């Protein structure tokens, strides 16, 4: 073994490809699936895609005090199956997840078990053939699968967030293998996320520590209100009702029903969802839940019969309509939308975004 001073990572010599794959298994460097051996040539090609010194820190995992360099990210990107053209999204996602509000350590260690959702919006989605249509959440597209998987491999290998050692998730999350989607730009009646964020000519990534995926289905909905009330009902499900943020992905079919009336701008849709995604406090009380905050239970007053006093009547999902990330995705057919709640019990992680620096040309 030799250690490359330039990369700070050891170079290993093995006899052939199958030995390399098995070596990675033995060393504990996989997510359970085989990885592409990160040969020196492939890693160098990955780094060529971005204008970064290999030792540039692109991600920080505060509590473990570990950082991720561009080189380490490139190694894990090769292992996950990325092409160099995918790598700028990995870099942007890592930068976004390292922002303080994301709470990187908590979301990778918690019993709650978040999947780290990566949403990509803008021209890069077509340039690298990402999937924004059918089977949006998997499987079948190399870019979607490999970009999401890279993030997970970085958690495992660079930040050492190992299942049942430092990642203490009770039941895990299918999104821990990979959870990366593109926003659909056609059959989308509203401004794209990159446009809403003020970058109409650039691509952006939004990262979100997501709880479990909810399929929202109502093929009988014929009006905007009927379609959106179905989404709001899913958002107010007691199993995930907190003041945390939400991701709502409307199918093209549902978006078409909603936007048939020009009144329904994206902003009005978000407002409607927030206003209708709530439960009466007695519903929470029946399952023993505190109502007006996720914080310290001791602040609640109890009357003699055990009913909490001094509370508002309704508990909404999120704190405002701004807590809902709304975009269009999925196949042409089907009134199947989705809602992904925030991980855990509230506002422990706030979604973050980052502009994607395009691949280096030439």
């Amino acid at each position: 073994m030799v250690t490359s001073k330039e990369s700070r990572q050891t170079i290993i010599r093995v006899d052939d490809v199958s030995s390399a794959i098995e070596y990675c298994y033995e060393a504990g460097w996989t997510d359970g699936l085989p990885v592409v051996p990160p040969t020196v040539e492939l890693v160098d090609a990955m780094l060529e895609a971005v204008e970064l010194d290999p030792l540039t820190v692109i991600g920080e995992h505060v509590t473990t005090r570990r950082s991720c360099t561009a080189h380490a990210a490139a190694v894990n990107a090769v292992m996950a199956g990325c092409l160099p053209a995918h790598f700028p999204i990995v870099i942007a996602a890592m930068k976004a997840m390292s922002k303080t509000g994301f709470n990187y350590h908590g979301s990778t260690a918690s019993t709650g078990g978040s999947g780290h959702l990566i949403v990509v919006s803008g021209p890069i989605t077509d340039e690298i053939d990402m999937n924004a249509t059918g089977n949006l959440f998997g499987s079948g597209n190399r870019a979607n699968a490999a970009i999401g998987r890279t993030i997970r491999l970085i958690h495992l290998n660079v930040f050492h967030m190992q299942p049942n050692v430092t990642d203490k998730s009770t039941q895990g999350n299918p999104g821990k293998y990979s959870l990366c989607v593109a926003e659909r730009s056609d059959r989308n009646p509203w401004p794209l996320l990159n446009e809403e964020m003020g970058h109409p000519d650039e691509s952006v990534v939004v990262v979100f520590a997501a709880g479990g995926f909810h399929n929202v289905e109502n093929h009988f909905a014929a009006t905007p209100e009927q379609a959106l009330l179905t989404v709001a009902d899913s958002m107010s499900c007691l199993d995930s009702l907190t003041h945390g943020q939400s991701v709502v992905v409307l199918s093209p079919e549902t978006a078409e029903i909603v936007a048939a009336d020009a009144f329904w701008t994206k902003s009005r849709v978000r407002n409607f969802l927030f206003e209708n995604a709530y439960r009466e406090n007695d519903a929470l009380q029946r399952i023993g839940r505190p109502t007006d905050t996720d914080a310290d239970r001791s602040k609640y007053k109890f009357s003699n019969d055990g009913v909490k006093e001094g509370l508002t009547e309704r508990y909404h999902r999120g704190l405002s309509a701004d807590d809902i990330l709304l975009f269009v995705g999925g196949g042409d057919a089907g009134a199947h939308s989705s809602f992904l709640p925030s991980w855990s019990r509230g506002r422990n992680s706030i979604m973050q975004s980052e502009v994607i620096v395009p691949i280096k040309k030439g």
Partner: protein
Amino acid sequence: MVIEMYTPVIDDQRVEIASMAPRLSTLKNSRIGLLSNGKHNANVLIQMTADLFIEDHGGEVVLELNKGNASRPCPDDLVDTVVKADVDFMITAVGD
């Protein structure tokens, strides 16, 4: 054909481990500080633990702090408060 490949881990990341606090020679009549991590019932567990100390060894609770959010790192100002606290020892715990 021999393959040369990189390891995906960064070899020389040395994680600093904080040193242990000096051991106390006695628990008798201690000034006790409490730090809840913010999870449900953490404060209950900590208070009961403090009560047991006081019952067995005397002393009193002179400081009660709450981290507020169990999932987030402890804010720097709170760490500073704990470091400067005029207590003999702190009790902290996770609740739920």
